[in-house]
């Protein structure tokens, strides 16, 4: 594969990794002249259409995530049987390798990494994307030790593939939540569990549950309790043990509710603050305020602790204790409220103003034409605040390049997160991409043309083609093929069916044949049955005396061949059992077929008459003929059985017209 260029754009330079589902190559993007990582799906999956669809969908969903701790997805594509994802190239190692190399990490570093991973998950979860396969192998460490999570959502596509595979013995099962191991069910809290396991491994250098086969590992996740990390590595704070064990609770309801909640606890721990416990519904902000307050107001804290103690120990004077506790709580509430306001409005600003080094305005440089990654790297290096980049489609600027910026280059703004003016970047998303739908095969070409033009902003062009399997006027295929992702505004050829290609055939000789024989011969030569003449005769008894066109003539397939029978009165060979005709002795009754007034016809009308006897429902062909409008009404003879209901059913020009019941009583 190395040396190959995918879609004339990605030049595969070197294989840098291989996983259960894909091989990863370092590649050069010829358009944007940058390094990228190209993940190429393994062979065993490329025959599974359903899987490929899901894979693509998940990859596109993940591509919408933009976060410093998420490996960006640039492109999803295929060339022939090669399906690939183009991602940000990270010059670094996986967290697994990082742990293997460094052994157990200091708990502070583990907390930092976990916070980064959780903040990536927080972003994804907010967008409704579950990772489903969080493990150190899917967390890359850049050369600056920035963790970046990769392979969002792809696990689901892979695990649901119907391809028989060997269970992954080294990977995911060590990090799967109990519900994932048991039922395959996953949600945000499964990701949190997996972060818990990853954190455990960072702290101790080993996974919490291990065994010699994946099923035993899964069972341990379902049934066994993990040990405290501090029992393996002494010195890990108790609060850290609690965070890990809470993330790894068997019951989903006992875990952290959100990535944000777990970040809050890790953040407190990192800053040496105590963790707010027993609360399932704290958001980050609230937690932080109370935490800060505890530092500010020791008195308040002491009060609170005392209050709690009283509540627990004061059994004798329960109600008194309760009142005291209540008063304390009220008091704390007032103090908290007051200090919250004071702290937030005044103290923080004051402290910032006095303690923080004096900030200088920084000049904003020109980012237009720069790649978004470089632009953000520059902004971050200068500590300049920026808003989430806005992506817009562009037919002229390649994807990922900044199109516009605010404020313009040359203006100076204040650095820092709290600055009011933030840099806004508008980034090209490349040309708008649309997928040619796959459900348009066999659809009417007009509908497809309209849909491609109006809904998908494509330029459809219709080209005619013969097809044996697609009916006339219907869509056979498109170019590029259905399912391809193309730029909006590009041309798509719709191949419209002309029906089967009509070849030329030589008309066979059917004179001297019975109707049955002639029908077989004509149909097997791809010809159709024309008029049966003389019209109105009784059935098709006897043998054909003439045909038109004559035997030996060259005609197109499906040409109707008119057949002439002898006069029915004339003695026939007597052996012909006509199609749908009763035996010669069946009594018949004459009926007139009339032209309905409520329908428009051309100059000639094709009439097909069937009849059914009794309630059998079996429609027997009586007669098929084409006549001029002026010749109506036309008489037919309908076989009947006395005392049994007979129904005459009439079709005109291929559509059901009317039916008539005939009942002739037994005599």
């Amino acid at each position, binding site marked *: 594969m190395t040396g190959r260029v995918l879609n004339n754009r990605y030049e595969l330079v070197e294989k840098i990794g291989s996983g259960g589902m894909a091989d990863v190559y370092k590649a050069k993007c010829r358009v944007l002249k940058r390094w990228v990582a190209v993940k190429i799906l*393994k*062979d*065993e999956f*490329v*025959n*599974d*259409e*359903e899987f490929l669809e899901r894979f693509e969908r998940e990859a596109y969903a993940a591509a919408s995530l933009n976060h410093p701790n998420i490996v960006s997805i640039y492109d999803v594509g295929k060339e022939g*049987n090669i399906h690939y994802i183009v991602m940000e190239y990270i010059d670094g190692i996986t967290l697994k390798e990082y742990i293997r190399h460094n052994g157990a990490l200091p708990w502070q570093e583990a907390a930092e990494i976990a916070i980064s991973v959780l903040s990536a998950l927080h972003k994804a979860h907010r967008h409704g994307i579950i990772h489903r396969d969080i493990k150190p192998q899917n967390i890359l460490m850049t050369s600056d030790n920035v963790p970046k999570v990769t392979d969002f959502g792809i696990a*689901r596509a892979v*695990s*649901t*593939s*119907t*391809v*028989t*595979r*060997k*269970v*992954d013995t080294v990977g995911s099962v060590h990090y799967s939540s109990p519900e994932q191991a*048991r*039922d*395959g069910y996953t949600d945000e809290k499964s990701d949190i569990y997996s972060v818990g396991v990853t954190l455990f491994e960072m702290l101790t250098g080993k996974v919490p549950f291990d065994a010699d*086969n*994946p*099923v035993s590992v*899964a*069972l341990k996740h*379902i049934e066994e309790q993990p040990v405290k990390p501090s029992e393996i590595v002494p010195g890990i704070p108790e609060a850290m043990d609690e965070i890990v064990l809470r993330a790894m609770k068997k019951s989903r309801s006992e875990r952290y509710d959100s990535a944000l909640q777990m970040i809050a606890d890790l953040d407190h721990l990192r800053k040496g603050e105590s963790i707010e416990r027993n609360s399932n519904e704290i958001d980050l902000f609230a937690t932080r305020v109370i935490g800060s307050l505890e530092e500010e107001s020791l008195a308040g804290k002491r009060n609170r602790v005392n209050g709690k103690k009283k509540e627990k120990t004061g059994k004798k004077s329960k109600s008194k204790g309760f009142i005291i506790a209540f008063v304390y709580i009220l008091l704390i509430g007032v103090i908290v409220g007051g200090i919250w306001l004071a702290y937030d409005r005044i103290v923080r600003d004051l402290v910032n103003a006095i303690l923080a080094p004096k900030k200088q305005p920084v000049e904003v440089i020109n980012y237009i034409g720069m790649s978004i990654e470089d632009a953000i790297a520059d902004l971050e290096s200068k500590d300049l605040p920026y808003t989430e980049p806005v992506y817009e489609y562009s037919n002229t600027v390649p994807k990922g390049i900044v199109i516009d910026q605010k404020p313009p280059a040359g203006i100076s703004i204040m650095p820092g997160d709290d600055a009011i003016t933030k840099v806004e970047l508008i980034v090209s998303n490349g040309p708008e991409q649309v997928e040619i739908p796959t459900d348009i095969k066999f659809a009417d070409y007009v509908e497809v043309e309209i849909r491609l033009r109006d809904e998908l902003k494509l330029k459809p062009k219709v080209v005619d083609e013969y097809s044996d399997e697609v009916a006339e006027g219907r869509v056979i295929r498109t170019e590029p093929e259905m399912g391809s992702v193309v730029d909006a505004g590009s041309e798509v050829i719709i191949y419209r069916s002309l029906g089967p290609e009509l070849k030329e055939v030589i008309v066979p000789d059917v004179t001297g044949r019975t109707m049955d024989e002639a029908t077989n011969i004509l149909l097997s030569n791809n010809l159709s049955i024309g008029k049966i003449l003389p019209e109105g005769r009784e059935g098709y008894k006897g043998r054909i005396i003439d045909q038109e066109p004559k035997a030996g003539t060259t005609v197109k397939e499906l040409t109707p061949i008119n057949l002439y029978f002898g006069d029915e009165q004339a003695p026939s060979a007597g052996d012909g059992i006509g199609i749908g005709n009763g035996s010669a002795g069946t009594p018949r009754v004459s009926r007139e077929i009339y032209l309905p007034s409520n329908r428009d016809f051309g100059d000639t009308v094709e009439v097909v008459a069937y009849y059914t006897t009794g309630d059998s429902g079996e429609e027997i062909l009586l007669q098929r003929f084409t006549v001029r409008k002026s010749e109506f009404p036309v008489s037919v003879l309908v076989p009947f059985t006395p005392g049994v209901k007979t129904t005459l059913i009439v079709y005109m020009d291929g559509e059901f017209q009317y039916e008539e019941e005939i009942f002739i009583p037994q005599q």
Partner: protein
Amino acid sequence: MKYAAISDKGIIREQNEDFWNIILDQDGNPQAFIVADGMGGHKAGDIASKMAVESISDSISTYLENRDSDGSVEQILREAIYKANDVIFRYAMEHLNGSNIGTTLTAGMFCNGKMIIAHIGDSSFYLVRNETIEKLTRDHSYVGELVDKGILDQEEARVHPMRNQITRALGYEKEVQVDFYSLDVMPNDIYLLCTDGLTMKLSADELLELLKKEEDLNTVLKNMVALANERGGDDNITAIVVKI
């Protein structure tokens, strides 16, 4: 004894990666039955199953011609399987850059009034006796093992996202572990060997019903395949049925 076999690629897959064989002795009596469901990607998916069936068939035929081995039939099968494992594993090393291929294997062989069954992976061997059906083999698959442990029930296993992941495969690693089962052959027994393309779509009770409904074994197998395909047909389907 009557027997029939069928192999159908299903309606989704482009190729059939299942293989089967019925090995006859010199008198034309069937002695052994094999089904195998290969894995390893669209270029190599059928290699392991084909090699396994060919290699094991060869070993059994050689044994049947000479019957000079002192070993039991179980011994014969075990050696045949180890040899096949070696052949496949080495082939992958030498010709496929070491990329892993493998196959399931379920084989049954007659021996002195007994049926000896060798089994790896998630294909199945069913016994129908006294109007009841019993799956004798235990799946070496992630979900199969969770079922054995009582964590999942059969229905949960059939819809589990990891239902296609097996824990043992022939030719996948340097060594392979084989399960053996043995049963006394009784008059009117029916044996059904099949790949998961069938068992993922039809429950044991449905298999039994189809076996009871129709006398002709070829028709039974056709009906089974038709039903599996009607329910999605997303995998290859292979089955051998033997009626004593």
